[in-house]
């Protein structure tokens, strides 16, 4: 508590956590839209994900309701699996295309 007080902040309130989550999400979003390396793009989606998770935990704590945090544990577990799967796909794409540039994947253009 003291350390926080020394930095000039009072208790970290809900708004702080929500802002952190929003910043994480926005960073991820910008990265997702601007980067072309598939792995980076993928990491950016993870970043957006974490932003959402932080929001969930914060609101759970605020409402004194454990459900949100329980939900986060499950979501993280699933996210781990999903990450493994997505990375595997990226590797396969790389083997086929010999590049990680997302702009080179345009076979589905209408």
């Amino acid at each position, binding site marked *: 508590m003291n350390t926080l007080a020394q930095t000039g902040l009072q208790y970290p309130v809900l708004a702080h956590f929500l802002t952190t989550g929003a910043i994480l999400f926005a960073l991820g*979003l910008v990265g*997702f*839209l*601007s980067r*072309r390396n598939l792995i980076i*793009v993928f990491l950016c989606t993870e970043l957006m994900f974490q932003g959402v998770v932080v929001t969930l935990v914060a609101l759970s704590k605020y409402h004194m309701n454990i459900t949100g945090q329980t939900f986060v544990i499950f979501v993280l577990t699933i996210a781990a699996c999903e990450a493994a799967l997505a990375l595997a796909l990226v590797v396969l794409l790389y083997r086929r295309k010999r590049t990680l540039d*997302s*702009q080179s*994947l*345009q*076979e*589905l*253009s*209408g």
Partner: protein
Amino acid sequence: MTTFELAKFIPWFPAVGVILCLICCTKPALRKLAGPICVLSILTSFIVTCLAYKSVPGVVGTTVDENTKFAVLNLFDWIHVGNFKANFSYFFDPLTIIMLFVVTGIGTLIATYAMGYMHGERGYARFFAAVALFIFSMTNLVMGDNLLVLYLGWEGVGLCSYLLIGYYYDQPIAVEAAKKAFIVNRIGDLGFALGIFLTYLTFGSIEFNVIIPAAQELLANGSHAATALSEPVKAAIAQAQSVNPAYLTWIPFLLMLGAFGKSAQIPLFVWLPDAMAGPTPVSALVHAATMVTSGVYMVARLTPIFQLSEYALPAVALVGGITCIFAGTIALTNNDLKGVFAYSTVSQLGYMFIGVAVISVGGIFHLTTHAFFKALLFLTAGSVMHALAGNLDIRTMSGMRKKMPVTCWLMFFGCLALAGFPFTAGYYSKDLLLGDAILSGIKTSDPIAAKMFYIAGILGIITAFMTAFYTFRLWFKVFMGPYKYEMGTDAGHEPVDDMEVITDAVAKQHEQEHDHTHHHGPHEMPLWPMNLPLVPLALGSIILGALVVSGLGILDSKWFESMLENSTQFAASHIDHSEFAHHTHTTVAIISIILAVLGISLAAIFHWWKREWVAPLCKPITPIINILVNKYYIDELYELLIRRPLHTLGRVLFVFDDYVLANLVNFAGFVPRLVGYAVRPTQNGVLQNYGVGMVIGLAVVIIIAFYAWLGF
């Protein structure tokens, strides 16, 4: 299980035959088994029919109780919906058993003949599968205890007729004829189906054991003891009395249309002469002896219902009479061996309709004798056609008796019976019904109905003369006179075994046989299996009438009469045994004997003795002959009045469809394509662009939600 119980399986022996024949179709080695299988399955049905004969209520020798004039054997419960009930059950009375004898007995003989006739044809097994299927349908038709089973058999025989007419499916003529038969029959069947619906609306039932007693009761106007009636019959009577009385008039006229379609009467007779495109045994079985008589059977079976309308039976008689003379005149000038018999079948069916319409024993009697002699005539005609490699033009034939003596005399017996020569089967049955027709014309109280009966009878008597002439015209032309023939183009009677491996040696042998036969020319048919089955038919054609009418010590005399008197056909009327009736019958018989002998003699003069007289005599009446040769231009008339307008209508609708409907539909398809064209660039496959799209969408949702939260 008693013997009688076995009778309910009569249709199912041929059904098993169908399955076995179809199995034979699949394996080349089994194909030649199909014929014997088919014959045996029909023969089994015939034997079972014979065994069941004594147990049928109402047959000669059994005591008849007023309430049990028929028996119903239930095979299985079929349709029960609300108060609608149609079981798969069979109705037995003397009429049924007579029809079963005709169908299975004649069927066995013809199938046996067909084993020889169809030998070596492609599709041998297919042919016998269709024949067995036909017998299955036909027995269902005559045994069904309600209109729905009858209708099922009715459509079944129609299908088999289509399959068998179109047997040579690589010949356009056969395919056309098959389609024609099918379509013309559909028109009649529409009427029949509507008749069945209306019967249900009127009586609340379609079961014979309900509607026939109900109709009888309505006719008798409640003079029977009401207690004797069962509950369903009472309900049916009550319902029939409560509906619009016009229904009772409509039912017989609608059912009549179906009968006229199936039994080739004016105006629906055009399909039958064309049906001769099928193999000859089929012409004999389906298009002469059995199937075409199912309309006659239906009228006979439902006589009490036809009697409910005052003019239904007179109309049947009049149409029968007109068809009779109409087809008879066409047959006079026809030069096609099978064509003459085809038109004579149409004409004889007219007689049968006169017979059943005046509620004469002669109707069904003539059906039976006609089955014998017409089957015989067609099969012998088939033998001639077979011997001449498919040639059917009687102008090219002469003096064939030298090469085909057995066929010649077998056909002679058939011709005698068809011509109504005294004391042959055809003579008894035809004169019986004509006598009854004249009698009805005199005795019927309603003047218009009486006139209709009378005209029908007179037309029948005139036709008797023509029948004698055209029958013997054909016989004298083909079998008498100097020996002369032309071969047809059809080498179909050469055995071509499709299972045989055609090596060079075999091919050469075939070639030699082929040449050999052509060199050899016409030849007699083998005794088995072709000529022998014809002997019972010939015997039947000659002595059946005498056997049935005078007894000859084997059957009770008046056997047929007693049989039918106990059937439902005569439920509401009785045979007139008065002195006057006897007198009328004798007069008609004498007139027709004179006419028959006159016809035969004229035929002998012009077509055997003095053939050179024909041409000069025909010269002054050439226009009339031309009309007859062209069959009264009926086909052309149908073409002009029905086919052409329909075709034109079809073209108009086609144009409408092609230009209006098709464009509308294409426009409906064009709109999404246009929209797709507009939005297609956004789907460029770049991952991040989709991401931008999602974010923009999210932003829009958030903005809307925000403003909604703010309240404006």
